[in-house]
C-alpha cells in the first residue's frame, strides 16, 4: 500500500506492507536520526512527534500515520541543539544513544506544560530510558533549559 507522510515539513511517499512499523519505514526512507532501541515500545529512543504529540514510532503502524505530520529530531534541530548545550553542561549526555528520543520528548513537554514541577518532568519523561542512568543530570539540564527558555 502507498502512504504519504509529511516529514519535517516535506511530503514523502512510501510503498509499505500494511503491517510495517513507522520506525522501520522512516529509517529505510533515510531518516536514520530516528533510533531503534528496544523495539517493544518500552525505551522511548524511537520517539517522534505525530501531529505535534510524542509517540513511539516502534509501536505505531506506519499505515496509521498515513496523511499525518511527522517530526523527527532533525525537524527540531534548533531547539535540540540548544537543549544539548544544557545536557553537556550538566554532564548528562553520556553514551548518547537515548538522546534523540529524549530530546524530542523534552521539547514536546516544553511546548505542552507550563512551569512543570520536578514530579511533572519525571512523569512526562517516564517513557524515556537512559541506559547510563544519567537521570539526575538530565533533570538538572531540563530545569535549567526551561528556566533559560522562560527568562
Amino acid at each position: 500500500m502507498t502512504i504519504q507522510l509529511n516529514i519535517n515539513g516535506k511530503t514523502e511517499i512510501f510503498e509499505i506492507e500494511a503491517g510495517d512499523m513507522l520506525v522501520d519505514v522512516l529509517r529505510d526512507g533515510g531518516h536514520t536520526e530516528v533510533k531503534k532501541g528496544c523495539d517493544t515500545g518500552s525505551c522511548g529512543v524511537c520517539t517522534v512527534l505525530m501531529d505535534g504529540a510524542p509517540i513511539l514510532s516502534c509501536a505505531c503502524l506506519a499505515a496509521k500515520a498515513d496523511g499525518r505530520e511527522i517530526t523527527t529530531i532533525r525537524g527540531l534541530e534548533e531547539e535540540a541543539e540548544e537543549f544539548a548545550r544544557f545536557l553537556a553542561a550538566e554532564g548528562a549526555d553520556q553514551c548518547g544513544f537515548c538522546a534523540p528520543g529524549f530530546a524530542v520528548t523534552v521539547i514536546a513537554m516544553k511546548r505542552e506544560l507550563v512551569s512543570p514541577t520536578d514530579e511533572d518532568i519525571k512523569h512526562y519523561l517516564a517513557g524515556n530510558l537512559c541506559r547510563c542512568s544519567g537521570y539526575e543530570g538530565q533533570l538538572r539540564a531540563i530545569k535549567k533549559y526551561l528556566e533559560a527558555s522562560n527568562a
Partner: protein
Amino acid sequence: MEIAKFIRPRAIDEAFIAVRDQKGFPIGGGGWSRMNSRKIPLAVDLSGLGLRFIRRKGETIEIGAMSTARDIETSDDLRESFGPFFSSTVAHIVGVQLKNMVTLGGTVAGRYGFSDLNTSLLALGARVVLYQDGIYDFETFLNNRKNGPFLLEKVILPADTCRASFQSVRNTRNDFPILNAAASFQSNEWRIAVGARPGAARLAVRAAEMLGGISVPESDLIEHAAEAAANELVFGDDLRADADYRRAVCRTLVSRAVQEAGK
C-alpha cells in the same frame, strides 16, 4: 502482527460493515501491533471516525472509543467530576508517548486483565455503547464475552457528585499491576472493583453492600469490607504473583481505596 490489508473508513457505518461482514480487526491505538504475531486479513483503523472526544452530556460524561490515555489523564471534565481519579488510574502507563497511543476503545474491547482503566470504569458503573447493538452495563460486558464482531463507540459515565480512589501495587512504577483496586461512592452507594487478579476486573459486591450507604465508614467497617472483598473474589497465579499473595494484597488495596474515597 501480519496485516494483509489496511483500511481507514471515514464513516462508522463503513467501519462496522468491514468489522461485521468482512471479519475486519478493529485497530484502536495499534500499540500491540509489534508484539502480536496474529495474522490479520483486514485491519480497520478507527481513527477517522470522529470517536476521539470527552464531553459532558446532561448528567453523564461520554468518552469516545478513540480517546487516548493522555486525553483521559488531562481532561478537565473528568477532573471536575472525579478529581484525580482518572489521572492516577492511567499514571502507570509507560510515558507520555504510549499514553498518546493507547485508546480507551482498545483497552475496553480487549477486556485486558492487567488494565488499570477497566477497573476504574467498573467501579464507576460505566456503560459501553456498541454501535448498532446497544448499551451494556460494563460489568455485563466484562463478564460475558460477546459472541461475534462488535464495534465499541463510546463509554458513558455517571457524572453526578462522586468520590473515588484507585490503588495498585506493582514491581516497578511502570510495570503492569500485580493487583489493582478502585472504590467509588456515588448516589449513596459504594462500588468496589478489583482487577489484575490476574483476570479481568470484577466487582466485590458483598464488600460494597457491607459499607451500605455510609459516606465515611469507620475503620473497623472498612477492614471487614476489605476482608470480604478478598474472600469473595477469585484470584489466580501468573509470573507476577500467586493467588494467595494477591488475596493478601487485595485486603490492603481495597481498604486504602475505601479510606481515600471516604475522605
